[in-house]
């Protein structure tokens, strides 16, 4: 019996486990290792294995004596010697942070309203939030390219208003503004859903009790609803911040030269300059940033829950 249940366990968990080890864990480890290697002559990576022309067998080129010719810490040094990379990381954090904040401000009243609506409308209202999210991500970016384009009605209207107060025309496309607004647009549902899931569970009696005790509307929100909703806020913040941090398509399409983020640099290293070791360094830095944030969010989230209780 014990034997067959062990067998069952392996039959069930084995296939997905093996698949993910091959196509997720191993590639990730290879990428981490690539950060310590040298770029090849034609991009990619300097080979560690070569075919011996005499024997025809594959031989490992790197050994204890010559490992310095094949492995290096310099790629990491490069990251810290030129401040431009650290600055780009800081800028990406700023973009992602601002995006998260704007999403939170827009999503909160919406999530609250849906959570307090009669039950029969709730599913429909939440479906209306998810629906645009089901259309392709590039289509949603493209929609803003039309709106922000210099010949679009929106740009023209804004520039006419600006002209009235004597301010010269502004270009909305290819700006920081464009990157932020599109990042907010593509991530907004990620914030609404966890907030709604949290707010829906709140016990309305708590608000009534607060009111009976003389709390004003603002006090009731700040002292009751907000602390209780913190787990939802943190979940939403993580769901918006992390993908926004690694984004490359949005800055590529609407950011212009000013608006690039870490993701653009990573993409550039892998596909254009083909400096894979440095691209891997950047990817590792991004991974570390995400892990750090996830750890931090888990800590604060736990603290938030304790405070709420």
């Amino acid at each position: 019996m014990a034997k067959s249940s062990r067998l069952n366990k392996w039959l069930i968990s084995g296939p997905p486990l093996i698949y993910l080890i091959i196509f997720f864990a191993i590639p990730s480890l290879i990428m981490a290792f690539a950060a310590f290697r040298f770029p090849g002559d034609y991009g990619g990576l300097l080979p560690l294995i070569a075919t011996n022309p005499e024997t025809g067998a594959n031989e490992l080129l790197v050994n204890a004596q010559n490992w310095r010719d094949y492995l290096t810490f310099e790629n990491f040094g490069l990251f810290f010697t030129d401040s431009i990379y650290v600055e780009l990381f800081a800028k990406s954090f700023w973009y992602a942070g601002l995006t998260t904040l704007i999403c939170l401000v827009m999503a909160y009243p919406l999530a609250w309203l849906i959570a307090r609506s009669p039950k029969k409308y709730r599913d429909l209202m939440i479906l209306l939030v998810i629906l645009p999210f089901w259309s392709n991500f590039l289509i949603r970016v493209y929609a803003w390219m039309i709106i922000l384009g210099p010949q679009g009605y929106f740009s023209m209207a804004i520039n006419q208003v600006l002209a009235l107060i004597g301010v010269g025309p502004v270009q909305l496309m290819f700006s920081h503004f464009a990157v932020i607004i599109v990042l907010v647009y593509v991530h907004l549902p990620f914030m609404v859903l966890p907030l709604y899931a949290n707010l829906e569970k709140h016990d309305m009696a708590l608000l009534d009790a607060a009111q009976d005790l003389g709390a004003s509307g603002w006090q009731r929100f700040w002292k009751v609803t907000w602390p209780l909703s913190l787990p939802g806020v943190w979940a939403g913040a993580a769901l918006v911040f992390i993908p926004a941090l690694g984004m490359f398509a949005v800055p590529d399409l609407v950011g212009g030269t000013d608006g690039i983020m870490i993701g653009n640099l990573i993409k550039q290293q892998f596909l254009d300059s083909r400096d894979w070791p440095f691209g891997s360094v950047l990817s590792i830095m991004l991974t570390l940033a995400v892990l750090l944030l996830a750890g931090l969010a888990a800590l604060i989230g736990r603290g938030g829950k304790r405070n709420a209780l």
Partner: protein
Amino acid sequence: MHSKQSKWLWAAALFAYAFLYVPLIIVVVYSFNDSKLNAEWVGFTFKWYEVLFNNEQMLVAARNSLIIAIITSFCATVLGTLAGLAMHKYKLRLLPLLVLTPIAIPEILMGVSLLIFFVMLNMTLGLVSVALAHIAFCIGFVAIVVRSRLQGMDEALVEAARDLGATPIQAFRLVTMPLIMPGIIAGALMAFTLSIDDFVITFFTAGAGASTLPLQIYSMIRIAVTPEVNAISTLLMLLTLFLIVVASKIAPSALRAD
């Protein structure tokens, strides 16, 4: 609720809904505009749809997307369902980590690491590499849906079946499986849409070998904005709507936000 408060709430919510929908409506409207520019409204036309259906590259890309999505949703559903079952039944450490991390990290990281991996294996980048990559990131989504369905299931039903003499396999096939079927279907639909929509991971793993619809749209909107893109966007939105309607018919729980 005070009416003044709720008025503000409604205003904010309506603004958020408008923010979500107006851009997409603009895309649909411009797909019928008889002008090469996405600017002034000139007149009504279907010509961009005609242009679209005569665009060979676009049709090939659509076919590629469809092939990859079908393969992906099949394989990811099988593997993801197993993962969901395993995570529900057993206390595991490695599997949940491997299943959930791809969802939590930025997509670009998975894209570039798979690029290095496939190139190292001397694999020609194309439909196969894209499908392998898509399966890897879809497994987690299917597993989550299936696991949440299992958590809502009454274990007593399986025990009752066992008491009545069913073998474990019979109990699974006749009791567990039908009960979690909506979750499995929801997971399959999710994998299908995730695959057909994915841009980032596809971008790194497709090479020059295979273009998909998102890659095709990306290259078109990078060079110049053309009304053809409005037309394909409108059609894709219609397809999505259709899938949602289908999903709500066969698996209502697929649409529940939990």
